[in-house]
């Protein structure tokens, strides 16, 4: 009884006023459960059928989870780490955590056990939600490094018939516990929600830091909700009748922004694919009205379409090429601000009904009102491609530290080379050093337990991005690259590598490209061939190969790549041309620290890891004998010595 008495409670009037303020997510949910009631909040595909969850049910689940967490001893301010593919359960628990004044912290589901343990421990999480056995195994394997974790909530118990660990709780048990708890204290949930304030920390969000250890950005309810409102003010493209497909990691700020923040603000339906492998198909079944995705998704769609067209019969291919030529001309005219002549518009219209629209339909984008590209920027070639098809693709610019978005392209003013202009209530400036800084109600509270990094990023209320850019006369921001990534060649030429990499990747055959040359006389590139597409290309030509390593070094493949590099060089000024390249024997991978979990290059790690190769390139060698250690799943270790050919291109391109 004493515990109940000690708990600070609000008088009924104060409670009502607090709940009306709608300044936290749980208050929003209470409001929405009333406002939308039996409308569909989530749809999840299970057993091949889309199962619907209404707003009222959403709230009921959140209440049950919150009760369960209380029963397990959760206190205000506690952190709950969440790992798994996107499922409604993840959202219930995140919301329940916040309802109790706690902080939800999404983790990337493909994180290796050690890194995951490090993050969970660093976040001081007392509770961890694991979607399935895969995640549970990681946590249990690292148990001795996770002394602060008290309970592990598991959604899918499959395969765990022999797991009797005392810390494990089934999700269904958690909810049952919660219903019991709330039957005893029916007022408790509202009481807890009413105590929440907009300035409370709502989430820890992993920043996709391309250097060293990831950082946990603390974002308040106010930060996130302001973000959503300021974005909606300039992008009124969403309605409560819309469909959205949630297939990107919950830990990513972009996903938080749409399927958590905007979901509460707008009230559209969030759909969860059955499995990651079925996402493409499920996307097509739903036909979402908008999408927010990182560049790799658009690159993937483009590459899939291109490969299919290369495979098509000559007639279809001609029609496609002709239609794409028309599309390109229309987009170029629009981008240059010139009027599109009537005959060209007529041709585009014809192309739309015969080629573009069926094509968009195949990839599930036909109903899409707007598609935003976030994270890394997307090369101009991709913009031409998608906009030519009639997809309203726009660039977004922002950081996790500003809750995701600070700039976006405006309708009718989509200039591919810019990142758009600031959203409502957001200021953007470029410092004398060329660094982009911004200020808005969404600028974060700081990094968790990292005052030094916080000091560097936050100065006088301004967020220092670490990006180099300039303001376009139109007011749009032009991003060069991460300041630290810009390459200075021996002769002082400054080159943003991303621009060249985007051009190199604009073919289905190159998966990743990294341009290097800091302090060197010329630029070189390390290329990753796309295993699937180059593999198919090789099969079509009767070239036999055994593995990625083998395929990547086939002379024909190197010829193919050389042609692509030549084409790219022809479009670049002489100082920016790539003079040497290698086709790497393996794909860059996050598990090897070569990419971030959002698939951005970790340049410093790559340069470190392939230092000998880089030296060989600049020493003028033609070949490089690499040493590769392979660890097989059964624990055996083997050392291989693939020989890489270093291809060189003449200075004139």
């Amino acid at each position: 009884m004493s515990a109940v008495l000690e708990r600070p409670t609000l008088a009924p009037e104060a409670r009502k006023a607090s709940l009306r303020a709608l300044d936290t997510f749980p208050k929003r949910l209470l409001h929405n459960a009333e406002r939308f009631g039996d409308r569909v909040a989530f749809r999840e595909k299970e057993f091949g059928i889309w199962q619907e969850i209404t707003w009222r049910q959403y709230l009921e689940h959140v209440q049950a989870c919150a009760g369960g967490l209380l029963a397990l001893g959760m206190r205000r301010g506690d952190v709950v780490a969440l790992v798994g593919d996107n499922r409604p359960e993840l959202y219930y628990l995140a919301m329940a955590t916040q309802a109790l004044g706690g902080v939800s912290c999404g983790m990337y589901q493909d994180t290796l056990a050690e890194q995951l343990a490090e993050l969970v421990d660093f976040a001081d999480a007392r509770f961890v939600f694991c979607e399935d056995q895969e995640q549970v195994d990681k946590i249990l394997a690292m148990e001795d490094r996770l002394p602060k974790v008290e309970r592990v909530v598991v959604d899918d118990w499959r395969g765990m018939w022999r797991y009797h660990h005392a810390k494990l709780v089934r999700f269904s048990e958690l909810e049952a516990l919660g219903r019991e708890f709330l039957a005893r204290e029916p007022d408790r949930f509202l009481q807890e929600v009413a105590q929440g304030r907009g300035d409370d920390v709502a989430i820890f969000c992993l920043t996709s830091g391309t250097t060293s250890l990831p950082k946990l950005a603390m974002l308040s309810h106010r930060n996130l909700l302001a973000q959503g409102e300021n974005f909606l003010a300039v992008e009124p493209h969403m309605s409560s009748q819309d469909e959205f497909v949630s297939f990107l990691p919950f830990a990513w700020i972009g996903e938080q922004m749409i399927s958590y923040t905007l979901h509460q603000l707008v009230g559209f339906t969030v759909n969860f694919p059955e499995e990651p492998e079925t996402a493409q198909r499920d996307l097509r079944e739903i036909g979402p009205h908008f999408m927010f995705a990182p560049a790799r998704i658009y690159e993937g769609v483009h590459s899939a379409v291109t490969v299919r067209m290369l495979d098509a019969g000559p007639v279809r291919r001609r029609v496609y090429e002709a239609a794409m030529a028309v599309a390109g001309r229309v987009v170029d005219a629009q981008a240059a601000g010139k009027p599109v002549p009537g005959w060209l518009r007529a041709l585009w219209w014809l192309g739309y009904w015969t080629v573009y629209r069926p094509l968009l339909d195949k990839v599930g984008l036909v109903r899409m009102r707007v598609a935003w590209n976030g994270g890394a920027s997307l090369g101009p070639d991709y913009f031409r491609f998608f906009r030519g098809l009639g997809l309203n693709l726009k660039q977004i610019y922002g950081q996790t530290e500003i809750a995701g978005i600070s700039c976006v392209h405006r309708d009718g003013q989509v200039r591919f080379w810019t990142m758009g202009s600031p959203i409502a209530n957001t200021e953007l400036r470029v410092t004398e050093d060329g660094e982009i800084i911004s200020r808005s109600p969404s600028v974060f509270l700081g990094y968790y337990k990292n005052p030094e990094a916080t000091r560097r990023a936050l100065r006088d209320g301004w967020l220092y991005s670490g990006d180099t850019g300039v303001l376009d006369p139109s007011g749009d921001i032009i991003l060069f690259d991460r300041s630290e990534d810009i390459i200075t060649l021996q002769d002082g030429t400054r080159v943003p590598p991303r621009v060249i990499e985007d051009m190199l990747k604009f073919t289905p055959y190159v998966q990743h490209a990294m341009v290097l040359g800091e302090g060197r006389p010329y630029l070189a590139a390390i290329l990753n061939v796309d295993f699937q597409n180059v593999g198919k290309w090789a099969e079509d030509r009767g070239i036999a190969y055994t593995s990625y390593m083998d395929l990547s070094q086939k002379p024909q493949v190197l010829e193919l790549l050389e042609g692509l590099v030549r084409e790219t060089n022809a479009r670049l000024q002489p100082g920016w041309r790539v003079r040497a390249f290698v086709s790497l024997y393996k794909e860059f991978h996050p598990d090897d620290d070569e990419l971030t979990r959002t698939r951005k290059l970790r340049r410093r790690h790559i340069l470190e890891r392939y230092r000998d190769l880089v030296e060989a390139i600049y020493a003028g060698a033609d070949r490089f004998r690499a040493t590769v250690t392979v660890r097989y799943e059964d624990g055996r270790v083997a050392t291989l010595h693939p020989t890489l050919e270093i291809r060189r291109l003449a200075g004139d391109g």
Partner: protein
Amino acid sequence: MGAGVPLVDVVLDVRHLTLRFAGLVAVSDLSLSVRAGELLGIIGPNGAGKTSVLNCINGFYRPQEGRIRFLDRDVTRLLPHTRAALGIARTFQNIALYPHMTVLQNILSGRLVHMRSSLMGCGVYWGFGQREVLRHRERVEEIVDFLEIEAYRDARVGELPYGIQKKVELGRALAMEPRLLLLDEPMAGMTVDEKLDMARYILELREVRGLPMVLIEHDMGVVMDLCDRILAMDYGRKIAEGPPEEIQNHPDVIRAYLGEEHGLAEEVAGR
């Protein structure tokens, strides 16, 4: 005995089985039994008669001698489809699916033994037929979920990778809701990852559903890891029977399997 499934400890009991093709003796005086919830492995060199034993159990072959009892019922004289209806399901060494049909259709075909409505009833569809179809689809979806093949539902089986086809075949056998599952080299030709997956399904079937199984498999590591008991055959005869550790070091097994010099333990260690 009350209603429902008879509670028996021994699910399958084979006594003195002998199978001859003209002059050739494929199986000779072989006895074996499978207990409830048990996973029995059958090993032996090529041509030892392993598949013939399975073919006798599910009724493809008629043995000249011996008796086969399944769930306390003599099934020696019954036809294969009758035995299937009683609950004996199997997969094949060489995939035997309908290559032009989709994954769902293939698995659904395993439900045929449980179809109650007549051809006419199905033709009319509405009413009983519809309810029945929905019920069967639900069971099929549970299997699709179990085998994690959601991404292939509507793909034609013939166009799928080998490892997936093997899963579909297991799925079709499971669709029969068997009380005994015969697996003929379910992991042959699979990659390491696919084998691990298949081992996981087999374990789950035993641990969670308590499904008794007979497994023929050449990968000794798999057999030794998974099986409760192993029966070793050579030239149609049983040469040893017992728990994995015992079989692994049994002198007759070592001789039959690998010639004189090597031990089976070496092969297990060297996988």
